[in-house]
């Protein structure tokens, strides 16, 4: 099975209707069949912060926020328990390897943690959104796939991964 790193900006789209939602849903629905999902424990915190920010922006009510966070955590737990999604802890070795990226590439810590986690756990590709494609492509030899590509194009690219 092919290991795909789910960067927060891609995974977030599974829980909000927007461009790329169908592509990430395709990947999540095929975890354990064609793909193994991989992400950092940090992703969970970033996405929850994202939901809170949506509430602050008036996009969600407080009740919706609480319900969505509980659902999101349940969903992630379900995928992890079924061994479809591997959640990698932010360990000393990942931090050590992320330090040079932060220092040499002037990257924010979160980017460095995601890139190094994907590399260390031998992901075939990192799924992200179009805002982050360029930034990540500069700092890792891993393939970076834009989750916002048209569905047909996205599937073609995913199928080329072996």
């Amino acid at each position, binding site marked *: 099975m092919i290991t795909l790193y789910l960067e927060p*900006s891609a995974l977030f789209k599974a*829980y909000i209707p927007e461009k790329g939602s169908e592509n990430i849903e395709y990947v999540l629905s095929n975890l354990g069949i064609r793909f193994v999902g991989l992400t950092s424990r940090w992703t969970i915190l970033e996405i929850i912060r994202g939901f809170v920010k949506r509430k602050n922006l008036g996009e969600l009510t407080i009740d919706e926020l609480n319900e969505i966070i509980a659902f999101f955590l349940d969903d992630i737990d379900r995928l992890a328990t079924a061994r479809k999604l591997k959640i990698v802890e932010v360990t000393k070795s990942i931090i050590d390897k992320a330090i040079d990226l932060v220092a040499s590439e002037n990257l924010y810590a*979160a980017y460095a943690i995601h890139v190094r986690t994907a590399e260390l756990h031998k992901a075939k590709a990192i799924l992200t959104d179009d805002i982050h494609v360029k930034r990540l492509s500069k700092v890792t030899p891993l393939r970076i796939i834009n989750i916002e590509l048209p569905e047909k194009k996205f599937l073609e690219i995913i199928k080329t991964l072996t």
Partner: protein
Amino acid sequence: MYYNGGSMKVVSVRLDEKLLKEALKRIDEGEFNNLSELIREALRTFLSRDRYSWRDRAELRKYLRGRKFTKSGELIKSIREEDEL
């Protein structure tokens, strides 16, 4: 019901042949590693049925459809930049 020595408990469940055949087909197709995993997943889904206003991710997105949302990538980017970490 008895303990298997770990945190899981072992229970016996009677299944009719048709249901079992369908379950085994899903396992053969690689969707689940074994029958225990499939039954746990089915039970979890059943028990969470009324916990939320939606049953799954697709229903959640449908529930939220029609509203204007900030692009997820923009939000993630702004969170990282605000934290200056």
